């Protein structure tokens, strides 16, 4: 180990998206020495792509809103599998976190009276999403980044964590490699916050970037932390479907929030055909009422296009399967139609949805102010993740914390749009605060040289046989591609037992193959090597999704089983939890959800 310098911090944060940056700022504010590690450059994390907005019950647009309504909406959306403590804290604290961003320089769009404007989004009873056009994530990440660079925080950019280190039962640091030179870096810290985001790259059609290989999930799992709710993957109903090379790129829900409607090839607004029982009282029953809602009429109810994402995605699948889809296997999302209703519709669309306008114009040659878009479901978000304590965000491993998309609990079986950006800030802040406190109380920790050596030896393996691979043999890209294809096909939006079992067999086969993969080139900025190193993580999260999905023999939220198409109240009482067993195999268990405190139960009852 002599060849590696050890970098020592009180708290290391893995990830520089909204959750990681907010955690870093908080930990530094609490006096901790903080190091941030991220795979890309600062400001490029996934958070930058978020479009629609951040949910917070500021009640600026509709004064009937409050944390209690937001709490009830989140629980209803999550089909009551949520960690209710997290749902409560999130709803209570999100408004302060939004105002705090403004104090750090963010500029949200404004209401007439100069306050933060809020927009409609699926599953939220009132207009609740603070936003900046359709580039809210950029505003958030840039604000946090610009605030952070003036604090005494080290940022290790283009540096990838390969393995976490332990000292007995507790966390002790991490081994990473920096891309530019391919050198290893060893980090020692009594507290580690994982804020690594999601797993979308396990599927072939996704809105997610190359970074989303489930690293945090897998790193935590390897050191013994529990994962939960991994069967709940969110397929966003509206991704681009044409041309092929843009398939999966997101079309924000904001399009529907601002008046966009879904139609099949016969021009029918099919979302009116199937409105779930528990949303019927809140949903418009005519096109006329739906439009009044979009216009801000408080007596009108929400258009059915704004039902939760799991439901809208399945309705789209239904239309496509019944042969009523669009030419390229999606349905039509039409915002241009508002010209029938308002005079300056082109201007309205371009102002409300500038980057959607740009995206379609540039990538698909379509002017969305004139023509309907073609859209279909895309893998978007993982509700499941590292099991954490609701207040502190500590995982089941002492000293290991998780926040943001890689943590589980807040969203239950289905996340409401906009609840992620607020999640990042609320729980990023909490993770930073408690990680700093933990580090202060448990400062002395040791790094074990043997663990470091094992990590670096494993990491170098793909480069060992460099050049040996004949043209026919599989490289890391081919394995990744194969995995993505069969995960999409067999463990995607519609699942059944046989298919998932066959997916698990194929995962097992790839697990044998992956460690033998070799790549050409050397250690310096070598994407092939990086892809080879990502394979373990992708395989771990894929297995976790498949095993959890097999165990949940019902349909709920983001998880739909063809062989068990209905909700089963017996499954409403527990989360599915995955751990690495002593023999190295993945163990599946059911952990019951603690009963709701009376106060929260009453809120849910009142808001039914």
């Amino acid at each position, binding site marked *: 180990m002599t060849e590696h310098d050890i970098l020592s911090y009180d708290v290391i944060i893995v990830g520089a998206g909204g959750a990681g940056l907010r955690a870093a700022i908080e930990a530094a504010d609490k006096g901790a020495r903080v190091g941030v590690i991220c795979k*890309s*450059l600062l*400001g*490029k*994390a*996934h958070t*930058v*792509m978020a479009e629609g907005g951040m949910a917070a019950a500021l009640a600026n647009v509709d004064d009937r809103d409050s944390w209690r309504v937001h709490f009830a909406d989140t629980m209803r959306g999550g089909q009551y599998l949520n960690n209710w403590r997290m749902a409560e804290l999130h709803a209570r604290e999100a408004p302060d976190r939004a*105002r705090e961003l403004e*104090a*750090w*320089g963010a*500029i949200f769009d*404004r209401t007439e*009276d*100069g*306050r*933060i404007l809020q927009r409609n989004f699926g599953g939220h009873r009132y207009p609740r999403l603070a936003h900046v*056009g359709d580039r809210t*994530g*950029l505003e958030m990440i*840039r604000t946090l980044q*610009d605030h952070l*660079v*003036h*604090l*005494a*925080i*080290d*940022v*290790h*950019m*283009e*540096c990838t964590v390969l393995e976490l280190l332990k000292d007995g039962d507790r966390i002790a640091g991490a081994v990473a490699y920096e891309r*530019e030179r391919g050198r290893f870096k060893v980090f020692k810290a009594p507290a580690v916050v994982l804020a690594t985001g999601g797993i979308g790259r396990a599927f072939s059609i996704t809105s997610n*970037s*190359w*970074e989303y290989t489930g690293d945090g999930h897998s790193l935590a799992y390897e050191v013994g932390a529990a994962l939960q709710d991994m069967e709940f993957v969110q397929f966003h109903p509206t991704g681009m479907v044409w*041309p*092929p*090379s*843009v398939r999966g*790129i*997101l079309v924000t829900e904001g399009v529907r929030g601002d008046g966009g409607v879904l139609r099949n090839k016969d021009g029918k607004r099919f979302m009116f055909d199937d409105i779930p029982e528990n949303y019927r009282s809140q949903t418009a029953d005519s096109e006329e009422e739906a439009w009044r809602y979009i216009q801000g009429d408080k007596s009108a109810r929400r258009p059915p296009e704004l039902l939760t994402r799991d439901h809208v995605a399945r309705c789209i699948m239904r239309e496509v399967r019944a042969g009523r889809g669009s030419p390229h296997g999606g349905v039509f999302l039409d915002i241009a139609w508002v010209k029938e209703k308002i005079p300056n519709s082109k201007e309205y669309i371009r102002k409300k949805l500038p*980057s959607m306008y740009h*995206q379609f114009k*540039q*990538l698909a040659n379509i002017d969305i102010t004139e023509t309907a878009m073609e859209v279909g479901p895309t893998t978007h978000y993982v509700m499941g993740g590292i099991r954490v304590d609701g207040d502190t965000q500590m995982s089941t491993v002492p000293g290991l914390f998780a926040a943001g998309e890689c943590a589980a609990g807040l969203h239950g079986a289905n996340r409401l749009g906009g609840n992620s950006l607020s999640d990042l800030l609320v729980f990023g802040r909490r993770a930073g605060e408690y990680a700093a406190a933990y580090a202060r109380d448990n400062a002395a920790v040791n790094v074990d040289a043997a663990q470091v050596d094992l990590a670096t030896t494993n990491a170098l393996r793909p480069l060992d046989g460099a050049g040996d691979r004949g043209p026919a043999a599989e*490289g890391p*890209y081919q394995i990744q*591609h194969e995995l993505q294809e069969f995960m999409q096909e067999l463990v995607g939006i519609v699942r059944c037992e046989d298919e998932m079992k066959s997916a698990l067999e194929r995962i097992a086969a790839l697990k044998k193959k992956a460690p033998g993969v070799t*790549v*050409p*080139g050397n250690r*310096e*900025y*070598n*994407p*092939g*090597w990086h892809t080879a190193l990502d394979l373990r993580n992708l395989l771990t999260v894929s297995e976790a999704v498949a095993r959890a999905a097999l165990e949940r023999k019902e349909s709920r939220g983001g998880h739909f089983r063809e062989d068990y198409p209905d909700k089963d109240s017996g499954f409403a009482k527990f989360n599915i939890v995955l751990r690495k067993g002593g023999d190295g195999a993945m163990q599946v268990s059911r952990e019951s959800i603690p009963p709701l405190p009376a106060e929260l139960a009453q809120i849910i009852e009142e808001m039914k």
Partner: protein
Amino acid sequence: MTHATFRIWRGDSSGGALVDYETDVTEGMVVLDAVHQIQAEKANDLAVRWNCKAGKCGSCSAEVNGMPKLMCMLRIDELDMSRPVTIEPMRAFPPLRDLVTDVSWNFRVKKRIKKFTPRPPDAPDGSWRMQQSDVDRVQEFRKCIECFLCQDVCHVLRDHHKHDEFIGPRFLVHVAALEMHPLDVADRVDELKEAHGIGYCNITLCCTKVCPENITITDNAIIPLKERVVDRHYDPLTKLVRLFRGKRDKGRAEIPAEDPVLHGSSRSANPSEESR
């Protein structure tokens, strides 16, 4: 489906050359797709930065047929396919490997710019009131995705290597966003002239032309900032008043001498042209 040749710069800080790769091109493909296809099929170690593939993160900047572009937003059918498509890294920054350059200088520059400093809140809940019409301009600047293409084309950096004296168009936009922020009360005018070198800009408009976010960098950001500098420094009356207030030329002293580290690359910011 058609066949096309891509001529990609391969190399590192010690030098490199253009290498031809052939690959199939399908409808709607963007340049980044072709690079990825080549990477998966023929050159696993071809280095390229990207994240969003939707023009939102500003990672995939490069020079395609000599034009500074985001590779993920450039459709191949917009290019002349009768000859090879040349893809090279940005020139204003030192090459690291293949299409990846060392842009760490930009991150160091940002740290030298005085941070956002708001006036006290307007309301008891800690919030402020701002009219949409008062923030439109600043929102334009805040669209910046930090792709650094404007830095790449600015001759002050690209040809004259004034990286130590001039912060470049991207950061003039950043200063403008702070200076014109309705809540901000800090003063950055003195350092604009001194430490940030705004005088080097001779309004060639090249930066505005390449900005993928269509930010009107020169007209809306740089020229108004130049006016503020001129008002202060060449107006004897203003200067006298300021002398009385004792607020003179504190700019340089307020820049922290030793910044916390921003690891990424420690190499010099000046590009070595020979190494291309």
